[in-house]
């Protein structure tokens, strides 16, 4: 079967790739574009490790086809922070020890950024429910939520 040519934009950069129509965006990111920051934990949308933004919406990249990225704007972990400066959320995750093995961390950081762009002042409960689709097995979520709330405060201009 001939591959499909897709033109898209990833983290603000025009990107092209070839893929099978049945390949997921996650497959394309990891295998065709070597952007391995986005992780596969389950392949069925139940763990959130593959979280990216798609035209501004937080999605599981394992539930989006690569061909659907045509003309879309994709945001991945690689686009958060830059070489000389981490994003506040990344700093707070480190400061609060909000990661142990780190496999869920890229997905959580992408999701947290999406949360705080939508709701800059979430309650603890709102944060927990928004992030319910990001599974973590190491931390018990406590320090993750603290990092999220602290990030929110800093991003609002406090502390």
């Amino acid at each position, binding site marked *: 079967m001939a591959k499909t040519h897709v033109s898209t934009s990833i983290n603000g950069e025009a990107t092209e790739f070839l893929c099978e129509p049945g390949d997921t965006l996650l497959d394309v990111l990891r295998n065709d574009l070597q952007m391995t920051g986005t992780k596969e934990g389950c392949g069925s949308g139940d763990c959130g490790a593959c979280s990216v933004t798609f035209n501004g919406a937080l999605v599981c990249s394992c539930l989006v086809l690569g061909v659907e990225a045509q003309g879309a704007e994709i945001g*991945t972990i690689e686009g*958060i922070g830059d070489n000389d400066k981490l994003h506040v959320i990344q700093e707070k995750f480190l400061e609060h020890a909000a990661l142990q093995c780190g496999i869920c961390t890229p997905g959580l950081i992408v999701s947290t950024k999406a949360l705080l762009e939508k709701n800059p002042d979430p309650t603890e409960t709102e944060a927990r429910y928004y992030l319910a689709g990001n*599974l973590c097995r190491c931390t018990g979520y406590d320090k993750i939520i603290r990092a999220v709330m602290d990030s929110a405060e800093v991003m609002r201009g406090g502390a």
Partner: protein
Amino acid sequence: MSEAREFKYIGQSTIRPDGYDKVTGRAAYGADLTLPGMIWGRILRSPHAHANILSIDTTKAEAHPDVLAVATYADFVELQSKSVAASEGAADVLDLARNCLADDKALYHGHAIAAIAARTERAAKDALSLIEVKYELLPPVMDVEDAMKDDAPVLHADMFTAGYEERPSKASNIAVRTEMKMGDIDAGFAEADVIIEREFRTPTAHQGYIEPHACTVRYDEDGQSMIWCSTQGHFDVRTSTAKVLGMDLGKLKVIASEIGGGFGGKTVVYLEPVALVLSKKSGRPVKMVMERDEVFIATGPTSAAKLRAKIGAKKDGTITACQGWMAYEAGAFKGSPMMPGVMTMFTPYECANVTVEGFDVVVNKSKSAAYRAPGAPQAEYAAEMVVNELAEALGMDPIDLRLKNAAKAGTQTIYGPKLKTVGLVECLEAAKNSPHYQSAIAEGNGRGIAAGFWFNIGGQSSVTVNMNPDGTGTIVEGSPDIGGSRASMQMMAAEVLGIAPSNLNPIIADTETLPYSASTGGSRTTFATGMAVIEASESVVAQVKQRAAAVWNVTAEQVDYADGVASNTAGDDKLTLAEVCKSAEQTGGQISGMANINARGAGPSFAVHICDVFVDQDTGKVDVIRYTAIQDAGKAIHPAYVEGQLQGGAVQGIGWALNEEYIFDENGVMENQGFLDYRIPLASDLPMIETIVVEVPNAFHPYGVRGVGETGIIPPLATVGWAVGKAIDRKVEELPCSPPRVLALIQNG
């Protein structure tokens, strides 16, 4: 020996050195390596829980244009040398090999039958259906009770229960029977005023790491091979794989990738030997990554168990007798963690009369693997529930009952040694005085409390500390970092060398760079690898002193070293560490310290947990309202990461107590092999997990460290189970406390 002291760097919550890679997505995990020419491997798995394999025909698969290699157990047999077959532990090697690829029996739904390597992942997966397997179905055996019956179908015709004086004449599913005892159990019960006896069941549960097993391997023309894999112990991957394939250790290099969770489940090989065979046969590097359903059906899990606990005590609360019985599911091959269950069950309590009997039983489920304090959560769940019931029967506060009988220095354990200094009393007192315990139980809520004990281990660790000419250094160690241990290594070395941690870069080296280091597990890393880091750093300091002494023309004994500066006690001269390193070339060569140790003196870690739950009496749904985890860390090198271990273990235990279980259909096929229906706790399921870190130093570690990684998963089962029981005024016996079970308890009394 350690004493309470002021530390310069230890005890701070520094930013972990590998943190930047982890928050940017740069860190490379098991599935993140691509090699030139790489092809993809996939495994064909048994759809049946129990079957004879009559034939495997791979010709059609081999004829597929994209398929470059096919592997079956026959490939292992060809590779294994006769010496392996005859050596000690051969039976275990054969079990491991037969788990990686089935021999003549499919022993569980998901059992690997054959493997394919093809140009693309899709082609490999599609070609699996071209392999023709003829099965003769056998009745599956799915729990210990059925497995232990006289007329049970037998999984292994050569399994005769070990542990009886006379070997049984009939094969069975009971691999091992063991009994530990001390004192006189009958006399103990005769003394008791109150005796509580209960039976309990715990489910098959999985470690639940978010990263599936993955490896990329290459087998070269001369047999020199490389494995890149996600593992807790790359030296053990080398050992196991070499044994299964009959290779020399020196021919196999294993590189540990970053690991996305293990909890004991990644101390075993599944894919690596298979991938190497495929690489050898195809002449190409091979990548194999498990999908989520494969992780559930073919790796881990921890043993389901049936348990009985019986405890007798006098009116004043003195425990006079403890009796335990347990049968653990080993899965398809022998080797459940029944023994640690037997050893830990009643260890939190000082009692002269204890008898515990245990059975290791095979069933048609995936071979069990270690899961955080393996064997202890199940056994201690049973004991702690009975201790709580005893407290109620005696009219005593459950913490007071535990304090009255708490194990301490000098307490005789059932497994042989007397305990050295331990912190159970301190944890109990901290629990009693905690804000959580002091708070009133809200109307309709239930509160549970439980203790936990785990030995922790030491073992082999190898470290070199290599100093650079500018006074910075590299800590080369061999313990895959599953929770932030590199930060602690950095701090321990910094403490000895007297320079800021940021000057030292800890790396995890591959199996060719360092001598053997045991797996990251058993709560050993901060203790044992830390000890090796300290020793290697002390060696650096000793060499620094010698070099300075030579410069100053004094003896090394006349040189002091503190805060990164060498001083001449016989004069005014000073040299910084950086200055000594800068002139190292002239004074004898670069400075490097080494320590290859077998660490002894691991200190046990005791824990006490408190939980308040609310139960919706109309639906049986349990909400965790408040949770406190208290644990003895000896000395918390990195307090935030120690807290993280307590919280992570608590939440895994909460999941195990509330919703996690393997569900099988009547044919022994697993039905919930995904994160949708295997329900681990979500962020929205939980409150903050309060932690209290107690520090009763372990005298055998220079800084007093006790391992903390494992004990935290033990108390939650009884803490939550008891809390649920109190909320609904019923006796909880079976876990998990899923809503249908809880509602049934409420409705049926």
